[in-house]
């Protein structure tokens, strides 16, 4: 199995499309950093406009942590696309290229093929999130320095002390990786159904956008179904920036996301094991 995973990772990283995600983050994050250098003070002012009369802010609030937090919030739709770009190609790409035939006529089981590809896709997803963390947090800290983190949500202002932030980010990125793994699993499932990689990428994005829109509509019916949409839990990394951290809610979100991964993978495995290879 290890050999198969190595081979799959080698194939993934020999493809140009794999680097689109890394390049996109490598370009987008510095652009946000640059914008924050020039417009950061204005942004911070805008964020705190309603509470400036009640609080006096001192110290370096425009710091690497705040910038990294804002980047993580704003990339909720972009990162799924970058993940789907590779995960949607994992099985369908072999069908398009006609290489299924060579792979399946080797003395390895279909379960091994699917599992190794899936794990390689999950590893790619984690590497992408690590890259995002490096670019936003590490580079952010280098450019903007350290300081307290100001988080405003639901009419609540929370200021985290400098030494109380890093662990929250590490766990938040970890959780983001779990959320993106669900996206990868969904794209992988779609990839097992078709013979062209475009379909899984578009379908995955369509599902995510529709779910996000449904979650955002403030009508009772949509709010009722919201707990059943996995996208609702992808952004649960924000819970790490509450005080106290609601770990029971985080555990629930983790289990729901993990359940989705298991379900999507199992379905892909079932489909692939029964599939006639006609390409």
């Amino acid at each position, binding site marked *: 199995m290890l*050999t*198969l995973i190595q*081979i799959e990772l*080698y*194939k993934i990283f*020999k*493809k*140009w499309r794999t680097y689109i995600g890394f390049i996109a983050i490598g370009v987008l994050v510095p652009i946000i950093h640059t914008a924050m250098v020039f417009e950061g003070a204005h942004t911070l002012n805008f964020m705190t406009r309603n509470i400036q009369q009640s609080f006096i802010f001192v110290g370096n609030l425009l710091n690497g942590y705040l910038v990294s937090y804002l980047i993580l919030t704003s990339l909720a739709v972009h990162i799924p696309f970058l993940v789907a770009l590779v995960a949607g190609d994992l099985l369908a790409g072999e069908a398009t*290229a*006609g*290489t*299924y*035939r*060579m*792979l*399946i*006529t*080797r*003395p*390895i*089981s279909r379960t091994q093929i699917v599992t190794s590809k899936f794990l390689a896709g999950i590893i790619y997803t984690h590497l992408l999130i690590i890259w995002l963390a490096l670019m936003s947090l590490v580079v952010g800290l280098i450019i903007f320095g350290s300081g307290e983190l100001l988080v405003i949500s639901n009419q609540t202002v929370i200021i985290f002390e400098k030494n109380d932030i890093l662990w929250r980010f590490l766990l938040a990125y970890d959780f983001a990786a779990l959320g993106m793994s669900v996206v990868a699993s969904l794209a992988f499932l779609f990839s097992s159904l078709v013979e062209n990689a475009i379909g899984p990428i578009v379908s995955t994005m369509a599902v995510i956008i529709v779910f996000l829109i449904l979650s955002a509509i403030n009508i009772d019916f949509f709010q009722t179904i919201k707990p059943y949409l996995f996208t609702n839990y992808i952004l649960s990394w924000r819970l790490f920036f509450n005080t106290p951290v609601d770990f029971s809610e985080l555990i629930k979100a983790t289990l729901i996301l993990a359940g989705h991964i298991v379900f999507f993978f199992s379905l892909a495995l079932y489909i692939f094991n*029964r599939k*006639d*290879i*006609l390409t």
Partner: protein
Amino acid sequence: MNDEKIIEVNLLTKHFKDLRAVNSLNLNVFEGDVFGFLGPNGAGKSTTIRMLLSLIRPNEGSIKLFGKSLQKNRIEILKRIGAIVEKPDFYGYLSAYKNLEILGRISGKEISKNRIMEVLELVGLSKRYKSKVKTFSHGMKQRLGLGQALLHDPDLIILDEPTTGLDPQGMKEIRDLILHLSKEKKKTIFLSSHILHEVELVANRMIIIDKGTMKVEGEVKDLLNAKKLKVTFETDDEEKVKNLLSQSGWGSKLESNAKTVFIFSLENNEIAELNKFFVLNGIEVNAVIPTRSLEDYFLKITDEVA
């Protein structure tokens, strides 16, 4: 060749919705055979090969390879098989060497760098081993396809139309390689083709299938060297020939005629005799075209498909 069955297929059936691609097919390939699997395009050859390699599942019937059920011993069996299925496709963004290295790593055997280079040398691609496969012509991919099939030194080699896209020299090289693998390396070869001549040159046994069912099976020499030949004589005078035939014993050998073209069923040694008979009786013979019955039959089913 001995009596050990390498491939044993019984009542194999595969349908795609309403289309019966393979219908109750039986075939046996023995150790050391170069087995020709012949049929026109769309006859069900590739579907059968895909079932032999577990790419698709049969609806009915059984497949045994090396005496073991394919369904129950898939991995063990595939270790002993090398195959080209239809057109050879590779990871175009990787080099020829890297493609073989990847396939070698999942072939169930240790494949050394030397072995990879040896195989590339064998198929005439050693000088292009670093080139990305996407830069290869169809013929080069076909050679590489053969290379990957031979890489792990399998006992059974399944080749689906291996000469497609090759120039005459390339086709000859593949034929020579098949004969070498059979005679020197004692491999069993299952060769699918829609060209009778190609099979005739290398195979010892063969089967012809059409519309998913077996039409003819047997030893190539028996099937192709049948005593009776259909011989077409193109003459200059229909009436005169008819009169001559009615007055001689040759009339009983006549199968049909269309104007001045007469088709006879003859034994090999009778062709010259009949030709001499016509000439001595003042008939001008413009052409004598012998056709073996199997070839005739095969051309007929091929034409029907076309």
